[in-house]
């Protein structure tokens, strides 16, 4: 039983989910023109979309069909693990004329992942 639960845990860990990813603008030298924030938590999606597709994996009907086809024909890939919900962030930056701009940029943070 212990081996079975460990296997389940390992499989569960490999499933499609959101992972932490912090973007630091200093790493790419963008702190010269981005006043704030200095970085932000962007997150990313990674993992396998394999049967069974749990509710929390936000699988589309197409993903269910594709998973089913994959089970009978391995040449057809499994569905991808992708962001299903994204949120914006506000950036305070200087434009090319040295004017300060505050702008809301859409789809910058992953809120949820799915298949």
């Amino acid at each position, binding site marked *: 039983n212990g081996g079975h639960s460990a296997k389940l845990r390992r499989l569960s860990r490999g499933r499609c989910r959101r992972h932490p990813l912090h973007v630091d603008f200093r790493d*790419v030298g*963008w702190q*010269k*023109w981005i*006043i*704030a*924030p200095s970085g932000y938590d962007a997150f990313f999606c990674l993992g396998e979309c394999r049967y069974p597709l749990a509710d929390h994996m936000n699988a589309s009907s197409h993903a269910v069909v594709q998973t089913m086809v994959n089970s009978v024909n391995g*040449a*057809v*890939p499994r569905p991808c693990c992708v962001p299903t919900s994204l949120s*914006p962030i*506000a*950036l*305070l*930056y*200087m*434009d*090319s*004329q*040295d*004017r*300060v*701009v*505050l*702008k*809301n*940029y*859409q*789809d910058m943070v992953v809120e949820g992942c799915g298949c």
Partner: protein
Amino acid sequence: GRQGEDTSEIDHGRGPPTSSSSTPTPSPPDSNLSQTIQTLLLSRLGLQSQPNPQSGVPVPQYLLDLYRFHQKQYHLVEDPSFSFPSQHIQQANTVRSFHHSESREDSHTEKDHTRVHISFDISSIPQEERVLSAELRLLRSDRASLGPGPHRLNLYLSKHREDPEQALLETRLLTNNLHSYKPSGFWEAFTLSAELLQKIQESSGSLGFLLEIKPENITNPLPYQMLASASYEDKTDGQNERHLRVCRSVGQDDHSWARERPLLVTYSHDGRGEPLIKHGRKTSGKSQRIRGKKGSKVRARNSSKGHDTAKAWGRAKKKGYSVQDWATNTGGVSWSERGRVKR
């Protein structure tokens, strides 16, 4: 990159196999690819190239306070009279700031200190961006002496100082109530219509104003010296500080001047994404005040976020929390929201 030859067989020839299919292991992108990715991202951000600002360019305090308020960092808002412009931001996703163009020649030739002409170059606003509203912000310094009685400020739209077709935009009575604003000054904000900004944006890109200040309730014209002593700051001596900070003092450093000089703020939308304030939230319709940095009051007029947070702060205050504890512990999340999350 996991689609191999077998996958291309079921593609029915709709597209050629990508080059990535032949490279099983990802390698670090070369500099050209990295540059291409950066250019793509900048393009998505609405920028043609990576801005390269000069070092030490001062940031307007209003934009900093606006950003901090938007990020719910209320305790970092520095201006005690800061008012969140929710009526402008409800539809806009971009806020741009412009300092006026300083012309030394004009400043030395101006003799009439009751009338000052200032202009702003707004040609850098992208054409695809729709300006929804704008504000002209002028600092009224507490150090200034208004002279006896109230004064009237007339704001004209004017291409240049001697423009014969000046259009009166707004007239405002400036009272001598020193208790109404703080020692650091009080910003008078004049709302400008979207139509006006769009018209300027489509034509010259230069927006000019003539500011005229006159004593109210005085029928006889005053001698020149009295008007001059009760008008704008005289930039020739730096001591004669007057109602509105529209001219730079002699020897004033860039940082100090950037915090006091006139500011034009435009609120626009580029057609992509959500506005800075999400719709569908309750608004109170009343002014809300919460405590900001150094115990100063920060007003959140018509702001749903400010409304929730102000109520939460009120409840926290009754429980004996300091603003630092409250801001740190809640991270700006309202008290009730925090309780729900915990449950």
